């Protein structure tokens, strides 16, 4: 038992900083940003320490307050959540630097509140990922959800109504999760995930356990906007302020997928999930519909942000479908896609944020002439787009490749067809934008104000370029990531 403190620091630094950001904001509103930035940098550093430790020495068990599990709450970091932790802190770091100017413009009188909520959301997501306790997970799920509601509601247009709908559905999802945990508690008398994993096999066939599993999984599906519970996501994300959407869109769905994987393989076992529940056929079909439907809906949009939100729905289909293919390659692909999709979505939402920052609009037609005006932004956009389509050497290709291989191995041709179909639709979608950006120029009817649009400021460009480079670098090092991290995270089937 090492006395490494990184697992707890990782979560408590942003939590405490949220308090100080609110307090410091009362003195001067400019204090909150440096506090938040420093906290997230420290948290990112700790997450790297944890990841290296896990890769070198294996699973970390951290007992909070020294209480022995299953009585105390335990933080467990294995290869799967070490990776997700780094993704969360990285995305959080990138978008906090990026959104500094946007916050100052969008929410000039709410800067401390924004950073407080931002830190609380990061805390919630990190806590969900790191905890080894099923009830603790519920509490942190609600912390992150409440912060998300407040951040989304700061947006314009229909933001209030769509956030309210999200709040209702999100609460139902979390309540179902809680109810499911209650069923497991009745059957086992434990809330510790490792303890549940040990006890549950002796209860196979128990109907309370079955109902518990179903309630938890359905609750998590509502949270991640998996078809047919995806209705809340496009509106809630489209009208959100671009300062917070760069944190929310890449992470919320991915962390929910992580919860699903955790519940399926670390609380229940792969054997229980795939032999006793045996929903593979239905779930993969649902994800096929999510992928095809999401892609087609995206194709129908004229609004760039709304198009991206439908792509998020389709990507959720990729990951859920990949996990429920029930073979190791499919699950590796889904886990790799958590990493890749978080960065791809981040990259595209950063581009959308710059577009809104510069032009105040986010229609597809607003890309006219952008290659000339913002070459760097559009260069990053092309990398993000290629990754979304799945062109090597960007990372999107590799996870898709794993997913397709998994589909072939499982003999699920409909899933393979959906993946290829979605790639084709993405190609159409993004090349349409590239065409608009490259070849269509403003007609004379536009006023001269638009001509002044130039490249975004460096504080926004550098994070975007870092993410774009990361997309390629992760693509090139996919093999190392899979052998060092993901291979250990996949359950033995």
């Amino acid at each position: 038992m090492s006395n490494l403190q990184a697992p707890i620091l990782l979560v408590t630094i942003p939590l405490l900083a949220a308090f100080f950001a609110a307090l410091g904001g009362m003195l001067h509103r400019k204090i909150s940003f440096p506090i938040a930035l420093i906290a997230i940098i420290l948290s990112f550093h700790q997450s790297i320490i944890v990841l290296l430790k896990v890769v070198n020495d294996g699973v970390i068990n951290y007992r909070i307050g020294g209480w022995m599990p299953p009585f105390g709450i335990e933080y467990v970091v294995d290869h799967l959540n070490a990776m997700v932790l780094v993704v969360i802190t990285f995305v959080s770091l990138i978008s906090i630097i990026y959104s500094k100017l946007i916050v100052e413009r969008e929410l000039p009188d709410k800067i401390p509140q924004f950073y407080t909520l931002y830190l609380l959301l990061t805390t919630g997501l990190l806590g969900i990922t790191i905890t080894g306790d099923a009830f603790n997970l519920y509490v942190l799920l609600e912390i992150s959800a409440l912060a998300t509601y407040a951040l989304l509601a700061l947006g314009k247009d229909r933001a209030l109504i769509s956030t309210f709908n999200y709040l209702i559905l999100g609460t139902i999802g979390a309540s179902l999760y809680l109810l499911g945990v209650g069923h497991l508690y009745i059957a086992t008398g434990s809330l510790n995930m490792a303890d549940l994993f040990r006890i549950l096999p002796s209860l196979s066939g128990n109907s309370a356990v079955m109902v518990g599993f179903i309630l938890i999984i359905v609750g998590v599906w509502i949270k991640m906007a998996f078809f047919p519970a995806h209705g809340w996501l496009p509106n809630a994300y489209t009208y959100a302020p671009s300062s917070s959407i760069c944190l929310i869109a890449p992470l919320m769905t991915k962390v929910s997928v992580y919860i699903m994987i955790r519940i399926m393989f670390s609380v229940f076992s792969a054997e229980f999930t795939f032999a006793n529940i045996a929903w593979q056929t239905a779930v993969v079909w649902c994800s096929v519909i999510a992928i095809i439907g999401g892609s087609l809906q995206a194709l129908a949009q004229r609004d760039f942000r709304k198009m991206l939100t439908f792509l998020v729905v389709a990507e959720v289909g990729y990951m859920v479908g990949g996990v429920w293919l029930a073979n190791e390659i499919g699950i590796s692909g889904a886990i790799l896609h958590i990493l890749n999709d978080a960065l791809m979505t981040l990259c595209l939402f950063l581009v959308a944020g710059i577009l809104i920052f510069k032009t105040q609009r986010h229609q597809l037609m607003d890309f006219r002439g952008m290659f000339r005006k913002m070459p760097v932004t559009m260069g990053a956009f092309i990398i993000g787009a290629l990754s979304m389509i799945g062109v090597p050497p960007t990372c999107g290709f590799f996870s898709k490749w794993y997913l397709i291989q998994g589909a072939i191995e499982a003999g699920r041709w409909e899933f393979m067809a959906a993946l290829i179909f979605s790639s084709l639709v993405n190609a159409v979608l993004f090349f349409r934008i590239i065409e608009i950006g490259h070849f269509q120029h403003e007609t004379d009817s536009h006023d001269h104000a638009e001509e002044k649009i130039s490249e975004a400021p460096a504080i926004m460009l550098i994070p975007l370029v870092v993410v774009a480079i990361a997309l390629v670098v992760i693509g090139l090092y996919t093999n190392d990531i899979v052998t060092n991290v993901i291979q250990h995270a996949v359950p033995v089937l």
Partner: protein
Amino acid sequence: MEFLLAKYNYWFYILIMMVGFYAMISKNNLVKKMIGVSIFQAAIILFYVSIGAKRGATIPIIEHGHDAVHHIDPTAYINPLPHVLMLTAIVVSVSTLGVALALISKIYAKYGTIEEDEINEQLTDV
């Protein structure tokens, strides 16, 4: 009948939950919807509280526990853990309600109504 009575706490929580669910789905007024959500959460809280109960058991404070180590009969005390969990869940439920009511008051300031159909009418007009 035996089946109904033996597990009556579960039947009640499902009943209350469905009342909340009904309000959430069918009510037009946003505050009523939110009350539905609260009832839904309260049902789950009742479910948890009821599973800790035991017939003939007392509150979990061990008499003369500080004197010496002695045998403790677990059936004589109710299980306090679900109750403690629910303290947290109540906090979550209250804060959800708080955020939702704040949202509703913002909605009222913007649209001048909290009836969902009237808001939708305004949205489609624009």
